[in-house]
């Protein structure tokens, strides 16, 4: 800031004006009455505020600079003009800088479809938000009677129409394992069933109360001893044993999402095979889909073909389209 500043209450060396410009009542003492003891250092605003309406203010001398002594209208005009020009240059400079900064960001190489500098801050936001993440924060539940009878079908990504439900199999790849486990619907339905009625939120901005049934992902993981390097059941004692991410893909590999393990193992995250108490409809991701209430709908992948575990962040379709990876709510 090069702009000459007001002299707010404190004295600047070489400034021989006395700051008692605002006296009480209807009289004003010209600042030039120097050499008498300075009045106690009162913050400037207190005076100003005490009697805002009835007082005449003359701050001319505070805007005087040493070269241009304001003695008449002409010198005052000069000072005003000079300060106005400087002020406008600073203002326009600031706004121009802003516009250039904006254009600069728009010309930066993109990091997964988001302008580089914005992506950096989005990643930072995720770190900030993770500080506030609590597993105990649950998506609010609603009575089943309030749920949408025909939930919106919003996307058909990865929903190859030649796909037959009867041919479906689920492939599961554990971490530190080269074996692929193949599961069918019966083996999943054998696990305890969990139902949830919550407000499903789309990243586009709409939301619907929907009712889903299936297997909690944490129950699935525990049952098959997945997600741990030791291939033992999850335990709270050994956090470093747990894979950092779970990845999900459609059978045609067209749609794929990654979940941080905390969200994947969140007690409300489901491998879902029922909607409104009936088997999942074809366009809702039959036979098995993800429901991740703590994330935007873009993470609730329809028609799961492959599940895998990794310490490296799995590829994520919408992240590659410029959204943030977490998509956390």
């Amino acid at each position, binding site marked *: 800031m090069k702009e000459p500043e007001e002299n707010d209450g404190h004295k600047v060396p070489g400034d021989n004006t006395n700051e008692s410009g605002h006296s009480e009542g209807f*009289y004003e003492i010209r600042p030039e009455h120097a050499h008498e003891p300075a009045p106690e250092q009162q913050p400037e605003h207190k005076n100003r505020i005490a009697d805002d309406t009835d007082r005449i203010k003359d701050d001319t001398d505070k805007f005087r600079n040493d070269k241009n002594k304001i003695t008449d209208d002409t010198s005052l005009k000069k000072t005003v003009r000079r300060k106005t020009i400087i002020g406008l240059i600073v203002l326009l400079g600031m706004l121009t800088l802003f516009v250039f900064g904006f254009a600069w960001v728009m010309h930066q190489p993109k990091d997964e479809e988001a302008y580089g500098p914005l992506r950096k801050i989005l990643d930072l936001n995720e770190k900030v938000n993770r500080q506030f993440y609590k597993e105990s924060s649950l998506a609010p539940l609603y009575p089943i009677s309030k749920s949408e009878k025909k939930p919106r079908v919003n996307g058909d990504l990865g929903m190859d129409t030649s796909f037959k439900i009867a041919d479906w199999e689920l492939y599961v790849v554990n971490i530190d394992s080269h074996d692929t486990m193949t599961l069918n619907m019966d083996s999943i339905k054998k696990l305890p069933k969990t139902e949830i009625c919550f407000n499903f939120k789309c*990243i586009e*901005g709409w939301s619907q109360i929907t009712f889903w049934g299936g297997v909690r992902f944490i129950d699935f993981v525990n049952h098959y001893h997945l997600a741990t390097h030791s291939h033992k059941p999850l335990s709270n004692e050994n956090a470093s044993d747990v894979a950092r991410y779970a990845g999900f893909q459609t059978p045609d590999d067209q749609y794929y999402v990654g979940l941080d393990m905390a969200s994947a193992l969140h007690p409300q995250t489901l491998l879902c095979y029922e909607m409104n108490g009936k088997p999942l409809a074809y366009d809702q991701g039959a036979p098995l889909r993800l429901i991740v209430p703590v994330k935007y709908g873009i993470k609730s992948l329809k028609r799961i073909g492959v599940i895998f575990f990794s310490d490296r962040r799995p590829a994520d379709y919408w992240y590659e389209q410029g959204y943030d990876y977490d998509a956390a709510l």
Partner: protein
Amino acid sequence: MKRLEKKHPLAIRWFHWINFPVLAIMIWSGTLIYWANDVYRIGFGDKTLLKFYPDSFYKAFHIDGRLAEGMAWHFVFMWFFFINGMLYVLYTIFSGEWRLLVPDKKSFKEAIQVTLYDFHLSKFKPPQGKYNGAQKIAYTAIIIMGFGSLVTGLAIYKPIQWSWVTWLCGGYTTARIIHFILTIGYVLFFLIHITQVILAGWNNFRAMVVGFDVVDRKENIPMSTENPVLIEDETENETKP
């Protein structure tokens, strides 16, 4: 002889002018987000009086199909909006400027009088300090609105981790509507603000750039005298907004 009169402290001028482009980015990026689910309308039953916004608007400003980009800008500039706003509020509190800005009992009556005067419905112009009643109400309301945008914004941004905030806002969809209405409020504020600034003239505008008003002085007082000079105040303090 004219005299100079301090008006806007340097800090407030910076907060004001930084807020201008930051808020512009927030409204623009917010519109990019709104495009993805543009369901709001004013109407009753099936009858729609006004829809935000027609497709032609999106096309004209290249707003369609940029949800991810809108979210990225919005979630970056929310920090600047938040920090600048907080610093402004803290500054007004610690400098005492808030006393000039927060309306008091008289302000509401004064606001009506000022409005009548501005619309040439009344000849009476209430005496005012730095700001008149209408300004005090407007400049305080805009801060409350900014706070409302932050709170409802957080309620939409992290409705599960900050579910108590979402609950306070009346739920997710309500928070979203309030967030949107507040934005309309900013646009209306901006339009009125610009109109008033144009009507108030150059001296008033310049005060937001350089900090001082140039004011007429009735008596010609010599600027340099050996002795203190007492001036009897006859000048009406004629500061416009």
